[in-house]
């Protein structure tokens, strides 16, 4: 398979098949081992998240001094990050469907963010995880906003894309919520706004509930402290947005993460799909709680290979995946959180400028 970008090693059909088998075997091993430990883990995380949210909101509700306000914002931010990343995202992937517990059932779970659960299941679980990093098919690649490869033609507007990136990060929950609207297609006239009415209806309903909760009901309940609570909630949402955006950008937009063309992925076998996931994703290293707070998206490679395996298992799967990669001569893209983030920012800045021919990433086309 030809790559649209990057220094991908060429793999023979037999090699791809052996890669697929090795990863399938690892997947089966972990699937067979799922049980009490995993159920206990996710229930404990949910309990911690609930405690943090109750404590955080309570502190904000009675934030007569700045200390309790700061503590409240901190705890509420942690709660929102945990809920979105380690709980919501992972449950909605079906990682805990095997528990047969309606509270952890992927199809009905609704998370604490602007994005409607059903919309997320369509655009993320289906589109992004199936067509990962295929330009024109995976709309998560640059979110129709950023140019992160020379395969996207340069326009003058891209000069300011770092500002767009910052704005997207600040308003990340709204951006994710409106992702399915496909603004870029509406603007270019490919689709009409009215085609998106069913989506908009569910979006507005979810957004209304979220705004009511964080900016109307809880603030009003605080009586004279209405402004404190409103600002506290706003700040907690902002912190969550910046954190989530940063983690997610480290997943596919680091220096080594590769992109693909539609024609590369026709009649794709399981081995080829695995191969694409490996090349298109990147990890970062860190402590146990950095992994938990990132919803284990610090193991983006493992997450893309096994999106419905409980994420806390990625930690133990990672050395095995790395071994398999080494055995097949495939690069395993990882580094410290800081280093990976720097390469993301560098990439955003580099592709703000038009293709220079020599400085860009070598082309295989």
């Amino acid at each position: 398979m030809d790559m649209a970008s990057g220094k991908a090693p060429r793999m023979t059909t037999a090699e791809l098949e052996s890669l697929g088998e090795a990863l399938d075997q690892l997947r089966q091993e972990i699937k067979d081992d799922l049980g009490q430990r995993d159920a206990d883990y996710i229930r404990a995380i949910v309990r911690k998240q609930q405690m943090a949210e109750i404590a955080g909101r309570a502190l904000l509700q009675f934030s007569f001094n700045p200390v309790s306000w700061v503590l409240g914002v901190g705890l509420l931010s942690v709660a929102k990050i945990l809920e979105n990343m380690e709980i919501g995202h992972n449950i909605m992937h079906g990682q805990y469907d095997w528990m047969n517990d309606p509270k952890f059932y992927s199809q009905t779970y609704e998370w604490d963010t602007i994005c409607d659960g059903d919309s997320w299941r369509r655009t993320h679980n289906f589109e992004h995880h199936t067509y990962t990093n295929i330009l024109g098919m995976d709309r998560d690649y640059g979110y129709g906003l950023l140019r992160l490869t020379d395969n996207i033609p340069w326009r003058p507007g891209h000069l300011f894309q770092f500002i767009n990136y910052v704005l997207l990060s600040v308003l990340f929950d709204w951006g994710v919520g409106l992702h399915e609207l496909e603004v870029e297609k509406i603007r270019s006239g490919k689709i009409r706004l009215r085609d998106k009415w069913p989506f908009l209806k569910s979006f507005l309903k979810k957004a209304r509930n979220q705004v009511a909760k964080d900016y109307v009901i809880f603030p009003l309940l605080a009586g004279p402290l209405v402004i404190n609570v409103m600002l506290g909630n706003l700040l907690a949402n902002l912190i969550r947005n910046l954190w989530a955006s940063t983690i997610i950008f480290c997943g596919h937009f680091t220096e080594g993460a590769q992109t693909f063309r539609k024609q590369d992925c026709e009649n794709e076998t399981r081995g080829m799909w695995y191969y694409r996931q490996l090349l298109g994703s990147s990890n970062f290293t860190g402590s146990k709680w950095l992994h938990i707070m990132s919803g284990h998206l610090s193991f983006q490679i493992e997450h893309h290979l096994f999106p419905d395996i409980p994420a806390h298992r990625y930690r133990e799967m990672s050395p095995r995946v790395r071994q398999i990669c080494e055995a097949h001569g495939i690069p395993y893209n990882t580094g410290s959180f800081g280093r990976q983030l720097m390469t993301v920012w560098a990439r955003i800045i580099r592709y703000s400028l038009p293709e220079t021919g020599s400085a860009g990433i070598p082309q295989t086309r």
Partner: protein
Amino acid sequence: MYSCSLNLTTSGEKMKIYPSASYQEPAGISMLPVRLLRLVTAVFKNLDEQFWRRRGLIQDWLELALCGIDPLLSRQRMAAEVLQVLNETPETKTLVLRPPSRWKGFTEGQYLPVEVDINGVRMRRCYSISSTSQQFRRESLISITVKQVAGGVVSNFLNHQVRAGDILYIGDAEGKFTLDSSLPGRKPVFIAAGSGITPMMPMLEALYAEHPEFAATLIYYARNRQELIFSERLKRLEQRYTQLSVHTHFTEEEGRVNKTHLLRDCPDIGSSEVYLCGPEQFMATVKSELCALSDVAPQIHQESFGSAHSMSAECQDIEASVSFGLSGKVVQSGGDKSLLELAELAGLQPKFGCRGGVCHECTCVKTHGRVMNRLTGEVLPDEQEYIQACIAIPVGEVSIGNW
């Protein structure tokens, strides 16, 4: 108020076995405060129910607090405390449970949905309630009697892991295998094998508590004397009520059920109302023996415990295609698989429970087409939308809307 009156309809007349559980109020103006109080309670109960039916932040936080105090206080699930574990036979135990006050009560013969988490996986099974509703009204206690099944994860768990003080999560009682409305004055004959006695024991006790003069027969098959469930309760009932005749058979000595046994135990079985419960094979044999023995087929009520079934031959070659509306998947069927199995083969993960047509957990919405009930071979009427996927064999083109 729950309705646990047991009605026998005799030639059009309703004959109440039990007085209604509700308070008998004398007429008159003095009852006004009581009525008002009852109205207010009903309104609050209703509001409370509506509140807990919704899922939201406040409910989740209250649930966390309540379960932090005691899991028995859970409002999102129905927690029943196990008060006693009694040995019935070496392979059978009775669990005495105390359901929460909002549990709606039951009629003898009904079953109790039970949820247990085993190795992280929530499993749902249904067990016949083996105590009487009279005991429930007096002591707020019910019991289920569980026989170990080879390879049965839940029955083994309930037999070996559950101790007094543990919690089981239950649902409201369900099931139509009761002495309720359909008895047309014919003599009831109860035929049970093994754990099939569990719904019948309380049915008989309730029947005789109210109608000591009623004639009934119980024919009960067990492998041997050690495996006879409820031998004490049966002995007591038989000694006390002369109109009840109890016949126990041990298959290790007398062999399997056959028409000679049935006729000897109950000569007028052909004109009776038969209540049948036991393993699938046993029930099939009893039914064919009964059909063979008289031209007037007795009316048969049966309760299936939903163990693994083999397909009847005529279903093997039904070609069908099923489209699942929500996931957009389409599967072909050769007529040997249920909708649930087909959906799972298609990669879907629908909710299920007993997988044997008992508990209705896997009910789905059929928007088009026909299905056949795997247990009975009956093709369900077209208008029936909610169908039990685990026992529905698609016939022709079938669409399922919500999968």
